[in-house]
């Protein structure tokens, strides 16, 4: 009995298709009547399950490159390979049904309900009615919309962010291994965009699709990308590397110009509090007798104590002298803790909290808000320096490897030439 239940229970994570590799080989697009190619000789290997961001100034051909992957724009020359299959010459309609596609304005059809929009691709590839119906509910659930509420709504009755979620649900409905996203969050307000980005990170964590994402916003690229391709005119790849490498070691002025000022600050977004040293801090609890708190303050090496409440959560910062000034009343003494960070917070958030705190430190809390330790200015500065130094070292190593590879290749070519 229980076995049959278990068997019919859907396990989306288990049978969902995860990503496929994408290989672009000398991809070129020349529009008739224009002298220079819009996209010139792009070659790129994208790993399965990877999120790759194309970022570059407008008109650099990043969208064109993306649209050549599902052949909305037919390449003038070059090959495209998805998984093990060369898709350059197969029927584009069939190809596109295997590739999710989400665009800026969500692209929802206004004359169809949310459910009809999501059901389009599964229906086209011939899923059974009941399977399509279940899938629609599952997809709505996946993108965080209540199926009962949103099922029968028309797109115009949704907010921009909700439309975008449905757009992503539609793109993923037939469970394609590859998802192409063309500035999908470009038209929503900054707060909603932030939410949608977090949501996409969560989704990708579950699904492991291969995502190619186009944006002109470098911060978005850093946040979402496993690797970032910085493109210049004619879609020439200026640099194709991890966000860390691009931030710390931009290959040329174009890339550093695009990264913009504050690369070190942006680097803070890539590191979590859990990755830096969390210092211990003397604590007392509200239940401790007044005398022992006094003694601890006077005798200890610290000028300050953190008082925890009964559930071990940070409650008050107590300084030497605070108790005197409050005439021995614990209720009036000290300063309430108004900001804490979790271990999953970015260093950027931690820095923000440290800067606004008068004492220059912030309490780190665990899952249930219990006190773990503190991070202060000094720790942050040290770890940022270490991070940047480490990045620089890997970058140099990387470059060294590349050079070695190149010399190796040249040697081989020379030998090959000599042999012929």
């Amino acid at each position, binding site marked *: 009995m229980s076995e049959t239940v278990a068997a019919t229970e859907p396990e989306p994570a288990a049978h969902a298709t995860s990503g496929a590799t994408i290989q672009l080989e000398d991809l070129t697009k020349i529009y008739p009547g224009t002298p220079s190619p819009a996209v010139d000789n792009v070659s790129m290997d994208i790993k399965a399950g990877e999120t790759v961001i194309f970022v570059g100034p407008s008109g650099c051909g990043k969208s064109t490159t993306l649209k050549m992957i*599902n052949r*909305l724009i037919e390449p003038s020359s070059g090959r495209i390979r998805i998984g093990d299959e060369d898709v350059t010459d197969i029927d584009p*309609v*069939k*190809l*596109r*049904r*295997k*590739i999710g*596609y989400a*665009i*800026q*304005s969500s*692209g*929802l*059809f*206004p*004359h*169809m*309900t949310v459910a009809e929009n999501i059901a*389009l*691709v599964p229906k*086209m590839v011939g899923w059974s009615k009941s399977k399509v119906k279940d899938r629609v509910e599952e997809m709505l659930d996946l993108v965080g919309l209540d199926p009962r509420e949103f099922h029968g709504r*028309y*797109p*115009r009755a949704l907010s921009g962010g909700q439309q975008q979620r449905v757009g992503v649900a*539609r*793109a993923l409905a037939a469970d394609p291994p590859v998802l*192409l996203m063309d500035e999908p969050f470009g038209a929503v307000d900054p707060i909603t965009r932030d939410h949608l980005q977090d949501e996409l990170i969560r989704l990708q964590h579950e699904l492991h699709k291969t995502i190619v994402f186009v944006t002109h916003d470098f911060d978005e690229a850093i946040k979402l990308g496993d690797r970032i391709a910085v493109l210049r005119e004619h879609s020439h790849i200026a640099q194709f590397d991890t966000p860390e490498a691009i931030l710390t070691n931009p290959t040329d002025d174009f890339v550093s110009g695009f990264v913009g000022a504050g690369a070190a600050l942006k680097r803070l977004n890539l590191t979590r509090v859990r990755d830096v040293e969390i210092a211990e801090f003397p604590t007392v609890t509200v239940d401790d007798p007044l005398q022992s708190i006094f003694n601890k303050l006077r005798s200890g090496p610290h000028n300050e104590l953190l008082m925890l409440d009964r559930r071990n959560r940070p409650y008050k910062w107590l300084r030497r002298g605070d108790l005197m000034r409050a005439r021995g009343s614990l209720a009036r003494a000290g300063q309430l803790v108004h900001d804490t960070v979790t271990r999953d917070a970015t260093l950027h958030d931690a820095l923000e909290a440290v800067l606004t705190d008068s004492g220059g430190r912030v309490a780190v809390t665990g899952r249930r808000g219990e006190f773990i330790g503190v991070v202060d200015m000094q720790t942050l500065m040290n770890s940022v320096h270490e991070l940047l130094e480490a990045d620089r070292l890997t970058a140099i190593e990387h470059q060294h490897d590349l050079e070695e590879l190149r010399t190796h290749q040249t040697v081989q070519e020379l030998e090959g030439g000599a042999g012929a």
Partner: protein
Amino acid sequence: MSFWEYLGNRHQQLLTDAFQHASAVFQCMVIATVLGVLIGVVSYRSGWGSSVAITSTATVLTIPSLAAIGLLIPLVGLGVAPTVITLTLYGLLPIVRNSIVGLRGVDPSLVDAAKGIGMSRITRLRKVELPLAWPPILTGIRVSTQMLMGIAAIAAYASGPGLGNEIFRGIASLGSANAINSVLAGTLGIVILALLFDAAYVLLGRLTIPRGIRV
């Protein structure tokens, strides 16, 4: 004989004429709609093609309808044939133009999305472009129908069917007792038919325009 007495005496004849009038217009509208939308679908993607389509259908409209019917009589004879041909040709312009405008007005990003999720050319047209272009096309059909109601009256000149017969009979016997009554009955009949058709189109719009794009 007063107008009301005239109606009472002739109601059989009038109803037959009205029915034939309505049926002629309706049938020609069906043909014109199918042809017009087809011309629109074929030509809307090329700027050159759609201007040819619009200009040629507009040229038809500049020919006086009486002359058009007159010119057709030696070619196809009297009766139904010249009526149907004239009405269909005259009905084309608003439908062709609105089809082209409607299909071109579909948001390019939606067409891009439709292609991107793997719809074939036909599916795209059937499921996305035509439904979205339907409201302007329906407006074109409405305008066409109003126009054809009037033009259909001329068909009586070529011994065609319809309420035009009443009007022509009246004009031919001006001065006789029932001349004015006859013209009046024909004209009013056409006006009433036109209003009925329009009401039917409003209903059709309610039934066929999807809720998501209804204004």
